[in-house]
């Protein structure tokens, strides 16, 4: 009998490891692959060596995506949540809804856990911090620094990583591999508003540089001025934006070639009315919005030949860049 128990204990060790590995391998082999664009930083794990910590747009979602029946509930840290995803033609995903119930049918979704308690109308209630288990990317020792260098730092050109993630039927996500975005971006403040500036001068003037960092030549369909870009609200910022004034609608498209290494800079004067935001039923300059309202500039409808979104770092209308 003692012998039998000992054999059971040994088999437990082997079985646990095999189960851990095979259940993940099954997802890698059979799961639907989506792409998630990210920005890394570089720490080191005691037991697992170098890894890159990944932060996604999916990591902090606006609470308005919560399904109606959850709006009046208190969600506890660790609560399992299912985020319904929409995949574009390039495979990149975007969050559409958040629920505590696994979506039925053929809907694409990812399973995550709430990182901190969420209570309506309490501090930070506008944002849901969610972890999906794909926030660490392990690389050979020394390569973490390489990735960080290529990714770039604050006030430098930053190249996004595009993670290829396999999703199981139950929403479990496993990172398969990564690729680098074709375009690097650099967002800088050209002019910051004075502390007591008039409402017409309350917002910053930003400069966005985009650079083809891929080995291939790229062609981007550009409109006049800054008309090729729109503002994407993140976290709690209002959705109702006045986008691209009438002049942009009339703006003709011109195909511009970006050879490998070519770059172009765009200037955004956020004081201009086309960047004003509908806030509390009034059009408000972005510099006058609450501090937690952050935005990103995103290139509108990039061609399918470009592998990822051309998207800036998050910023506040007064010019604070995250």
């Amino acid at each position, binding site marked *: 009998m003692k012998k039998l128990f000992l054999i059971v204990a040994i088999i437990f060790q*082997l079985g*646990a490891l095999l189960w851990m590995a095979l259940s993940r391998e099954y997802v890698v082999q059979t799961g639907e692959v989506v792409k998630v664009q990210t920005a890394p930083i570089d720490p080191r794990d005691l*037991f697992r060596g170098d890894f890159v910590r990944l932060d996604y747009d999916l990591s902090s979602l606006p609470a308005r995506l919560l399904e109606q029946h959850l709006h009046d509930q208190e969600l506890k840290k660790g609560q399992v949540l299912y985020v319904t995803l929409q995949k574009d033609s390039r495979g990149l995903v975007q969050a559409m809804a958040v629920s505590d119930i696994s979506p039925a049918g053929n809907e694409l979704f990812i399973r995550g856990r709430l990182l901190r308690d969420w209570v309506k109308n309490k501090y930070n209630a506008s944002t849901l911090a969610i972890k999906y288990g794909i926030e660490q990317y392990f690389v050979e020792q020394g390569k973490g620094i390489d990735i960080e260098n290529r990714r770039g730092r604050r006030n430098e050109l930053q190249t996004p990583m595009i993670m290829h993630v396999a999703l199981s039927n139950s929403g479990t996500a496993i990172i398969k591999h990564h690729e680098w975005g074709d375009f690097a971006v650099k967002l800088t403040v050209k002019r910051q508003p004075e502390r007591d500036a008039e409402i017409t001068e309350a917002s910053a003037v930003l400069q966005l540089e985009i650079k083809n960092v891929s080995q291939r030549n790229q062609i981007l369909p550009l409109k006049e001025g800054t008309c090729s870009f729109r503002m994407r609200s993140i976290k709690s910022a209002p959705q109702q934006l006045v986008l691209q004034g009438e002049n942009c609608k009339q703006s003709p498209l011109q195909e511009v070639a970006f050879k490998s290494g070519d770059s172009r800079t765009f200037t955004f004067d956020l004081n201009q009315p086309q960047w004003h935001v509908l806030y509390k039923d009034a059009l408000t300059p972005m510099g006058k919005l609450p501090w937690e309202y952050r935005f990103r500039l995103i290139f509108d409808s990039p061609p399918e030949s470009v592998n990822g979104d051309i998207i800036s770092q998050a910023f506040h209308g007064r010019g604070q860049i995250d």
Partner: protein
Amino acid sequence: MKNPHAWLKKELPHWIQDGIIDSEQAGQILSRYPDRHSLSWGKILISAFGAVMVGLGIILLFAYNWEAMGRFSKMSVILGALVITHVFAYKTRLKNHHLSESLFILATMLFGAGIWLIAQIYHIDEHYPNAFLLWGFAALMLAWTLPSLPQAILTVALLMIWHFTEVLDFDFATHHALLLILIGLFPLIWRLQSPVLARLVSAAFFVSLGLTTATVDEHLTASTLLLVSASFIFFSFWSSSQVTGWLSRTGVELAKPAWLVLLVMLFLMSFGDVSDDLIKVRFREPIESFYFYVPLILSQLLFAWLMLTRQFSLITFVIELIVLLVVLPSVFAVYPVQLYSLIFNLLLLGLSIGLIYQGSHYADTRKMIWGSLIFTVLVFARYTDLFDSLISRAIAFLIVGGVLFFAGTVLNRNRGRNRKVSS
């Protein structure tokens, strides 16, 4: 006597020669007292420590995460190494106990390496304390089935890391950590009959209890720890007087960390403002009542049993007094801070003087050291509270020094006398 078995083995031939016993009886006597030293726990622990180091080396080796090595190769290496180590450990378990024990430890370390390796291969970023729980559980299974002290020690270490990470990184109370220690580790002390493990598991239980109660409500921690330590000490009083042999020794070993906890808590309570904050339990959640009333009932049942079996001793009543002092403010919401602070100071003072007296009178160096330590710490703690002028501070130190000097002289005299008597 460091090794009574060796002494017995040396004496028995003389007893046979003198006609006190015959050789058959000598054999029976010798077999009655197994030579625990021949088990060479020291050697086993050193080998086990070596295996742990090798295992950590393997973990860090894989942490390098060679890109040139595919994920299936990496997994084959670690799983292959695990299987081979287990096979060798299993095969040698009857022929070479030391080697088998070390190989099983190495296998448990390889299992841990495997967990981290798979997490690395698949970039798993889930609730990482679970890895320590799984690893600890695997070690616990081997500790039970072999049975093995090094595996048991490794289990305690891994479960402690698991609980610390749950509490410190995630603020989870993790009540089941206590349940796991109670169900998985306390009975293992009985199975392995190891005083080292008894002390270690008892200490782990107090640390876990402190972590859990602090996460539930920090006001609960002091009361719970005091009530549980009182229960352990009452149990040791009962076990040392009612039963003989191993259970009696275990009771004493289990109570050693409890004594330390009791002393630390008493010391903290001797500061009025600290105890005012620590002692009042609020009972907002049922779990707070659970952690307060269960140890309270347990301690009172054990105290009642000690009284019924007429085991009266001064220290039993002192500990019961401490229990009552802890219970009163929480239950009746009455807490005269200054009076309590004074009582806790007097208790510590009495305890230290009692230990110094017993240590010097009965030539017990350990009691003497503990008594002196508590006395000195207490005087230093009250240094700024009570003594305003340099003269009173100087007098306090002169008295402390004088008491310790006198006690040391008595201790030396009595030890010398004891040596003469024994020679």
